[in-house]
Structure formats: structure tokens, C-alpha cells
């Protein structure tokens, strides 16, 4: 039997099959292959997006396929219940919203859910953590735009100045790897801060073949396998036994992103991305929250609040944001200074569970007010 197999014919058939899969099937399916997921069926959906550089310890992986990120999230599992039973609140933001060093239940969304909030007409308020580590408003806008498919009743967008500079907008790998989506946002909402996406070339055809997609496909496959460990352990992040605490003694540097005092203004910060978010949300209310930061009491704390921010820059940012809120009629809450210095962990925006609890308690009433006008 084996002698009758024509090796040449076998090789040709295999090559044709591989070429068809690589050059036709994979480009045709495109990025939407990420929608195929074992989460929310075989495994429970994750309570936050997958993100980790140490998959073998965190049982999670950073991947840049937006569909795969969403497909693994619990938010896509649950169809919206009858609107007189429940309202859905989506939380957007950076790693502090996502919950670096925090267990799922200790994140802002986790603690808000634990408060078991109800609107005055008896609807349960359910919070979904759609934060994603890396500081970029454009990344948040991209997530917001996609999250609208899952019927939020309220969007809470947690902000910090470090997400605003224009050079930060494309610096998130999630953004860098989803340029077509960003271009689409730019075109739809005419966002001046993102003008330079026009200059970025669309990915080539080869990028869409099996060869070009190999990393994407491998990551999606690994994400599915890691779902087993997520289901078994409930762990989705590596918690090191020890970490370097956020700096309290600061450099005597009074510049911010290279700007001296007086050089920073609303034109070089991406406030227009915030407004695009409001426009994208349409009738769904958006609550903007200026998130807590570390107010350091160490060396040079007269010049700087923390590692990220000189005082002048942060104060000016708050002023611009406050002005924008008035002129654009935004729902806004500023809780920048509500968390004591001792409750910050490894950066000037990451806090302990106790710190998150303070924030959760502080924002509860304004959230409920939006449902109980």
C-alpha cells in the first residue's frame, strides 16, 4: 500500500492545500477569527481583558486581536436582560481600572458589584471591567466603540493626564495593532489628534496571510488553552511576592513630556478623543472621572505630585478638563486626591484594594444619580 503512494503527488497536493488556507481562507476570515472562542461556553468568560507578559504564571496573555479580547470577556456572554431588571455599566480606563496587582473582585468593577447597587426603581446595577493596561485615550475610545455592541446603559471613563498627550495615543500595542479600527474612528468622528493615522499605511496583503497572521493565531489559540486555567483557578494575573513601590522621592524635573510650564495646552492633549467618545455613545450617558493619583510627600514633592506629573502640568490639565466639562456639558467627577499616599502600590495610579474601595464608595452616589434623575 505504501509503495503505491506517489510522493510527488502528495507534496503537490499538500502545497496546494497550504496555499489555499494561507492565501485565501485566512485572509477571507481576517481578524474576525478572534470571535471563535471557548470562553463563555466551555470556560467562563473573563471578568477583565486578558493581559500578561508571563502567561505560564498569570494564566492570561496579552493579545492584540480586539475580537478575541472581547470574545474572552464575560461582557459578551450575557445578553442584556429585561431593562426593568438590570442596568449595565461599562468601566473604561487604564491599568488602574483593569486592576494591576488586584484580584478580579478587588478591582473597581469588582468592588462596585460587591456593593450590590440598585436604582430607585429596583434595577440591579451591574458593572463590567473594560479597562485595559496602557495609557492612551484612543485605546479607550476603540474599546468603547466596540463595547457599544453589548448594550451598556452607562459608560464610566476613568482618565488621567498621562493618557492625553498626542504621542501616547498610538503607543499602546492594542492600538498599534489595530490601525484600521483607529483609522475608522478618525474618519467617523473627525478627531484632529489622530490626523497622523492618515499617514500610516494599511497592512499589506501578506500581513493577512497565514504567515502574517501566525502570531495572532498562535495567541488566540493560547488564550483558549489558558481558559482552562482561568476556569480552574480564577487567576488571571501574576501577583509577585514583592514589588518596587511607586517612587515617593522625585527628580527635580519640572517638565512634562518635554514641555515647560506654559507650553502645554488643550491642543497638544487629546481632549477631542473624549468628545468623540461622547459622540460615539450617543444617547448612552458617559461619566468621565479624573482618577486618583499618588500625592507624594517625599523629596521634591513641592515641584511634582508624583513620578508622572509636575504640579503645574497636572493642575493645568484639571483646569482644562473642568472648562471642557462646562462647555461641552459632560458628566464629570474629579476624585484625583481622595486616596491617601499609603494606599498606592507600584505606580502613581495603582492602588491597594482599600484604596479602590474608597474610590468605589465615592462614585456610587453620582452613578446612581445618573439612573435616578
Amino acid at each position, binding site marked *: 500500500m*505504501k509503495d503505491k503512494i506517489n*510522493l510527488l503527488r502528495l507534496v503537490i497536493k499538500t502545497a496546494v492545500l497550504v496555499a489555499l488556507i494561507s492565501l485565501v481562507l485566512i485572509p477571507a476570515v481576517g481578524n474576525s477569527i478572534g470571535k471563535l472562542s471557548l470562553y463563555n461556553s466551555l470556560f467562563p468568560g473573563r471578568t477583565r481583558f486578558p493581559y500578561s507578559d508571563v502567561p505560564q504564571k498569570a494564566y492570561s496573555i496579552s493579545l492584540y486581536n480586539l475580537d478575541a479580547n472581547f470574545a474572552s470577556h464575560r461582557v459578551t456572554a450575557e445578553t442584556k436582560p429585561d431593562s426593568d431588571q438590570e442596568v449595565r455599566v461599562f468601566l473604561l480606563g487604564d491599568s488602574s481600572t483593569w486592576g494591576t496587582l488586584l484580584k478580579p473582585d478587588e478591582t473597581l468593577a469588582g468592588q462596585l458589584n460587591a456593593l450590590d447597587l440598585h436604582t430607585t426603581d429596583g434595577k440591579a446595577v451591574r458593572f463590567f471591567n473594560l479597562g485595559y493596561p496602557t495609557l492612551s485615550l484612543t485605546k479607550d475610545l476603540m474599546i468603547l466603540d466596540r463595547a457599544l455592541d453589548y448594550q451598556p446603559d452607562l459608560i464610566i471613563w476613568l482618565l488621567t493626564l498621562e493618557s492625553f498627550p498626542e504621542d501616547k495615543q498610538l503607543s499602546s500595542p492594542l492600538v498599534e495593532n489595530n490601525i484600521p479600527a483607529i483609522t475608522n474612528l478618525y474618519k467617523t468622528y473627525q478627531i484632529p489628534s489622530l490626523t497622523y493615522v492618515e499617514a500610516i499605511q494599511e497592512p499589506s496583503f501578506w500581513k493577512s496571510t497565514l504567515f502574517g497572521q501566525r502570531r495572532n493565531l498562535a495567541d488566540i*489559540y493560547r488564550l483558549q*488553552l*489558558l481558559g*482552562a*486555567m482561568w*476556569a*480552574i*483557578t480564577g487567576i488571571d494575573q501574576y501577583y509577585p511576592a514583592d514589588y518596587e513601590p511607586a517612587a515617593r522621592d522625585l527628580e527635580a524635573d519640572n517638565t512634562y513630556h518635554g514641555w515647560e510650564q506654559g507650553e502645554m495646552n488643550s491642543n497638544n492633549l487629546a481632549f477631542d478623543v473624549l468628545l468623540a467618545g461622547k459622540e460615539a455613545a450617543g444617547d448612552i450617558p458617559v461619566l468621565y472621572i479624573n482618577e486618583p493619583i499618588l500625592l507624594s510627600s517625599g523629596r521634591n514633592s513641592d515641584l511634582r505630585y508624583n513620578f508622572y506629573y509636575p504640579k503645574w502640568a497636572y493642575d493645568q490639565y484639571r483646569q482644562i478638563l473642568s472648562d471642557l466639562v462646562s462647555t461641552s456639558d459632560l458628566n464629570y467627577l474629579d476624585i484625583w486626591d481622595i486616596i491617601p499616599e499609603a494606599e498606592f502600590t507600584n505606580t502613581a495610579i495603582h492602588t491597594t484594594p482599600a484604596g479602590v474601595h474608597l474610590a468605589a464608595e465615592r462614585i456610587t452616589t453620582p452613578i446612581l444619580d445618573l439612573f435616578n434623575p
Partner: protein
Amino acid sequence: MSIESILILISISLILGLLTIKWGRTDLLMVASIVLMYWLQPETNLRYLGYWLPGFSLFLILSTWALTAAPALRQNSQTWRTALIILASVILVSTISYADRQHLLGFNNAPSLFRSIPLLIVLIASPSLLFFLKCKIRVKLWAAFSVLIILFILLKTPWLTEQVSSLWRSSAGQNPDLASAIELQWLGFSYIAFRLLHIIRDKQAGRLPEIGLNEFVTYAVFFPSLAAGPIARIDQVLESIKQVKTKFSDSFWMGSQRILVGLFKKYMLADSLAIFALSSQNALQPIGSFGAWILLYAYSLQIYLDFSGYTDIAIGLGLYLGIKLPENFNRPYLKPNLTQFWSNWHMSLTNWFRSYYFNPLSRSLRKKKMPALSILLITQISTMVLVGLWHGITINFALWGLWHGIGLLIQNRWSSWIKPYIPVPDQNTVRHKLFQAFGVFLTFNYVTLGWIWFVLPTPILAREFLLQLIGIR
């Protein structure tokens, strides 16, 4: 071993397979195996150890040959020619390793050639002094046997390995306080040592065939089976080392099939299962007992697919080179009892222990007129404990062996007891098939539970995990 390394080995095997059909077969296979032994040796933190370990392997191999070769073979010109080829290969590797400071070719860094080459010459040449050693061959063979066993114990006992590592660090000017057992990784030593022990025992028993030096070295460090076996017996491969017995096209076809199956098992299935297979890191992390069972079953499948995948690749590479390595696995998880499981799991190792430990010990105890049950108890349990300790001299490996020894004993007694009451059913009956299925289920689960001791490093962790499995923890 990375997939890149495997692909390189496949390419080399194909080229060698074609080249050695016509000429230079044994020498080429030997040189390739020596060079690849150096290339495959993992890098270690111990200065230059990664470079010296393959040299030590060669020293052990040459010494064993010197002790076991027929006197006529020792003196002939072919032997001296082979010795020179070995020396030239090693000097070539040393020169490349020394020159390639950037580590581009993947060899371990060598010390300066002025220091390494004289030592290498001593390592390669000194075994010839054994020709002139004036003592009985019986004593020499037992001495060699003991040296290998002592070395094995040194390398497999974590505390002792750490001491060796510490000594090496001191002599190499490194901090001995940083010594650890895991930094002393001697590629293929377990397999090389057991091949050499088999040679010595066969020599003692007078059943060793005549083996030329080049065939002997090729057998001991044959690169497809260096990292993960199987432990072939010399008589299984000697003829095919000397000359090709099958058409290359047939070997290519069969070898490719085995390699593809092996690659799929190892890099697709086993590596995927590894993500959620039981390990010391995740043993206490499951939220409930169901999750703990998933981890355990995943490990059970992973270890089989990983190990048998490597074996498939080794057998496939061997076929490219015209050498049929023995099978190591034959659907072990589908066997209806533990005896059959062990006749089909890591077969080359269990056959080794059967031939050189279990059978001789049984015969010896029978001569002493010991009761049959005592013989069974001693032989079966001690054999399985030794099989466990072959993987590492730790309490958990001993417990793993004990678990299987007890299992085999219980199965043996049960079979004997039940036989008169339940006649053997006809093989085609539903009843027989049900019996078989129940046996497979029971055996698989017994073996799977045994892996707890194998994979977890301490008895305490193993106990905690067991409690978790039954929902107590």
C-alpha cells in the same frame, strides 16, 4: 528541545542518511553523533561545564569499550584510526566553540585551546591505559560498573548534585553559595550510563558481540536517541550501524511518518496540555476538586504525548539513518492491567530492569528457596522503586515506584485469587469487552494517580493535592 533544534536534526539526518548509504557510514554516524552531543548539551551556569560534560561522556564510553572490547580489536589499526577521528572531531568542536564567542552556532563556550586541548587529549587517550592495567577482567568490570552507579547516584541525588555543583563553582572561581542541583544538566547521561551498564553486564555474562570502537561510540551517543532514549540494546542496532538494510525511499517514507506523528504529539498536543497540566506551581491553585482532576488528567496525557512524541521523532530520525531503534511505547493507556501497562510504557527502560535486575534477582532468591510471595514482594517492589529512582533520587520518585510496585503486587495476587472463580471469557463476548474496558479504566486511573508523586517535588505537596482531589482541602 526546541522545534528549531528538531528541524536541524531532521535535516542533518536526511543528509547523513543519503551520504552513508554508499560510504563512510560508521565513521560519519560517529562523528555526527559526537558533534551533535556537544551541540545538544544545554548551557549551564557552571563555567565551561557545558563544554566539558560531553568530553566526560566520551571518556566513560571509551573506558567502557577499552574494558569490554576483544583483545584483537584493541590493537588493530581501525581502532587507532577511529581514536584519531574522535580526537579530531573533539578538537574541531573545541575550536569552533572557542572561536564562536557570540554563541551563534549554539555550542557551549570552550576555554582557551591551550588549556582545553591537552586535557581533551588526556580524556580521549587515557582509557587506553586500561589495556595495561594488571588486574582481573572481572574486577575491572565490576569497578567500571560501580563507577557508573556512583556517578549516577551523584547526578540524580539533588543534595549530592548541589555539592558537586558547589565544588565546580569553587574550582572555576564562581560563588559556591549560588550552587544548585538543577544547574548540573548532563545531556543524556541517564541513557548513556544505562547503555554502558548493559554492555558491562553482557560482557560479564559472556554474551557481548564483538564491537568496533566506532560502532560502540555511535551506539552509545547515537544522536536521535541521546536526549530521550530509547535505551536500545547493542544487538538490536549493531548490524544496522554497520550497514544499511533498507531502501532509502522506504526509510524516508516510514521515518517521515513517525517524525510527523511525533512532532504533532509533542509540539501540538503535549505542549498545549502543558498549559493546564499539573505542576508544582499550580497544584494548590484549583478552586475545587473538579479542577484538580482536570490538571491531573492533563498531566497524565501530557507526559505520555511528550515522551512518546520524542520517541517517535527519535525512531523517525533513526529510520532516515537506516537504524531501527526499538519502540518505547505501545498504547500503554489502553492496557487492561498494570502488568501490561508496564510492558508497554517506556519499554526500553523496563526491559533493561527486567533483564539486569528483576530476572537475576528472582533467580537468585528462588535458589535460596524463599517463599514465592516473598520473592514477588521483594523483586516487584524493589524493581519499581529503582525504576522510580532512575528518574531522580528523591522521596517522591521512590514513592511513585512504590505505588506501582504495590499496584503490580495487588494485581498479581488478585488475578491468582480470582482465576478459579471467574473463567476466562471468550474474547469476542460483550462480557470480555466490558471486563477489558473496566480494566483499562482502572489501570489508567491508577497510573494517573501515581503521577502525583512523579510530578510534585515533595510528599507534603503531593498529600495536599491528594486531599484537594477528594475535596477535603
